């Protein structure tokens, strides 16, 4: 089962796709989100988001700055102030 992942900045919706796993740099430490994760919300620190499209695939880094991540039954939403 894939995880629905969205990356949004104030300027635009950057990503909206099905992925395997995302590693998020949380304020209190990195955490990885897989499908079926419990509802969770965390602020994030400046760092790299690691997006793994398939299990065992090479992670794709996305640099993000400021914001927070929310995990709900709809998937993972990362609201970042800057991303590239």
């Amino acid at each position, binding site marked *: 089962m894939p995880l629905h992942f969205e990356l949004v900045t*104030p300027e635009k919706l950057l990503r909206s796709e099905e992925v395997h796993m995302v590693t998020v740099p*949380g304020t*209190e430490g990195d955490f990885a989100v897989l499908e079926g994760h*419990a*509802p969770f919300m*965390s*602020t994030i620190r400046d760092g790299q988001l690691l997006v793994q499209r398939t299990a065992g695939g090479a992670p794709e880094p996305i640099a993000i700055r400021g*914001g*927070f991540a929310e995990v*709900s039954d709809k998937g993972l939403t990362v609201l970042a102030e800057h991303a590239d």
Partner: protein
Amino acid sequence: MASLKALKVRINSVKSTQKITKAMKMVAAAKLRRAQEAAQNGRPYAERLEAVMASLAGRVGGVGASPLLAGTGKDQVQLIVVATSERGLAGAFNSNIVRAARRKADELIAQGKTVKFYIAGKKGRVLRRFFPDAILADHEMGHIKTVAFDDARAVADDLIARFLKGEFDVAHLFYSKFVSALVQEPMGIQIIPVPMPAKTAATGAAAVVEYEPDEESILAELLPRNIAVQIFRALLENAASEQGSRMNAMDNATRNAGDMINRLSIQYNRTRQAAITTELVEIISGAEAL
């Protein structure tokens, strides 16, 4: 009757004005498309932020809440943030915003409140004329070509710093809402203290959400961001409205110039015809006299 020469000069001058207004209309139309796109792209973030705020709304609050949410407990000093464009020649765009802001100010003054202004955008400076002593600050926006989030952030940070210093109790933001290319609506919203979105019924029943670090710290981070996003959205809407308004104004100006050229051309031709007729009559009567 104006001389032929004078009419010719006049027609040429109107023609070159028409060229300018036509070009401005075309530029505005191209920019409008881009501005509209930018405004649309900004929507998902604002919506999601709103949803998160709503789900947090019920959990936090009460005594420990941040002043950005709870306010200062007073509403004596009211700040009006006026976001306008940097350039004129956009129809009634800027004057509509300024008029809406002035109406609000008069209303508040009538209630005995102290009103201060925060100007964001060059065209809001006309407010100096009406309220020379009430201008709190004039935020320089002249260097901005396309609005980026950082520009909104700069305004928000400045406002929050001033709020925490106690320079005002309540802040309203005035801008122009982009309804369509033909319709722009001046709007005023309250941005500080942050109006909390109503708690949705669904969030109460949802599974327990875990927060990291905790609700209060998340909210504390969220509030300034929410203000920045509100301002960013206002700036984007403003940018789109400005171009829409300018496109209309220039379209009208082009049409008026066309009408004027037609009128002047008819007058020019009539005058020319009259001159020819007079000349002929002179020659014929001269020949007859011989």
